[in-house]
């Protein structure tokens, strides 16, 4: 098992036995832990096209590879705490892990957390597209640096 999988499994197990309301409460804890953008990224936000256009609420993502290790810098509007919590969770799962492992983030995280039932089909689909977005971003950077 890779280290990203181990981290992810541990996060998923935190959610496993909670009821729907508690799952959302825990997701809010993740949302509250997402750090605000640093001055560098605030500057970059102004000039780079980092908005995820699929999301109606403003979501800005920087999936990055630094010395072969992945990380995700993000800003999500406060009016979308579910998205913010999920992005924070992905960031925690891949932070400083080998980029090749982060590329392998599974697509069924929400189902395994039991959140898909709480959120419904359309929201789950929207969040899953964020996983794809992160993975593609990491792959692009990884390939560019090899």
């Amino acid at each position, binding site marked *: 098992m890779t280290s990203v999988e181990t981290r992810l499994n541990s996060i998923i197990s935190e959610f496993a036995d909670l009821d729907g309301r508690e799952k959302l409460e825990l997701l809010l804890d993740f949302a509250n832990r997402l750090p605000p953008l640093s001055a560098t990224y605030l500057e970059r936000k102004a000039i780079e096209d980092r908005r995820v256009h699929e999301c109606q609420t403003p979501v800005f993502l920087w999936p990055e590879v630094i010395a072969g290790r992945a990380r995700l810098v993000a800003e999500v509007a406060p009016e979308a705490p579910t998205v913010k919590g999920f992005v924070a969770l992905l960031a925690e799962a891949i932070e400083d892990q080998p980029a090749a492992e982060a590329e392998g983030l599974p697509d069924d995280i929400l189902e395994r957390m039991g959140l898909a039932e709480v959120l419904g089909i359309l929201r789950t689909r929207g*969040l899953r597209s964020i996983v794809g977005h992160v993975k593609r971003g990491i792959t692009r950077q990884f390939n560019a640096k090899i």
Partner: protein
Amino acid sequence: MAQYVHPEVLVTTEWVAEHAADPGVRIVESNEDRALYIQGHVPGAVEIDWQVDLQDQVRRDYIDRAGFEQLCRKYGISNNTTVVFYGDKNNWWACYAFWVFKLYGHPDCRIMNGGRKRWDLDGRAWSTDRVHPQQTSYVAPEQDASVRALRDEVLKHQKAGRALVDVRSPEEYSGQRLHMPDYPNEGALRGGHIPGAVNVPWVLSVNDDGTFKSAKELEKLYTKDSRLKRRSPTVAYCRIGERSSLTWFVLKYLLGFSNVRNYDGSWMEWGNCVGVPVVKGTEPSGGSEPHGVAEAAGASVPPAPVHA
């Protein structure tokens, strides 16, 4: 028109703060983002979710009559309860839930004008308490077909040259925007609009604080600029039927349209149907003119939602 035709369906945040605990009143929050309710809700409000509570999880349809009765009983709603809906996103989902309640004939439904945004701007307190309503009894009638338009009805309506209002953004209406490059297309296979539909983006109906525009402004927008008529049968649609339930609410209750239905299948159905008419461009019949209604009204229209 100096005031709304049915002003009683709109209540202020002040009214809600005063009446939320009344035994005959139930406040219901409906959001795009469910975690907002957990973060804080109007004291005493229950949450009804449009995807998980109001839609059937197997068929692509709403819960059936028995399911609706069960939902109302669970949330302490009786047939004579005044149900006040509010939510995020300019009350999109509040209007959607309101519409489903009207689909099942609930008599007294209202909207808290301005939704979560106005409650916040008014500096009112949020509660994180769990709400445990007392179970009620509830008996619902069969669905009221006068508020809902199904695909085949829309097709007949269109062929008869009747009024259609497409409330999506100008880019979605013209067919310019269907999905982003580099992303899977999760919506419809075809872009454009139903021939004859006028484009009145929903956003033109609301103020910055989430409240509805004045009767005078709404009348100008819908009956003068867009030439819709109060007594003509009218169908509203968007992508999945939520933005159009807001427009349906405006037309039916604020402007008093006598026959307006929401096509909840909307573009997610129409844009995937085989053999239905579709046109592209900024004009109702297709093609393009330099100025559409949205531009004339000087509006900035936000992009299309995807996870909404």
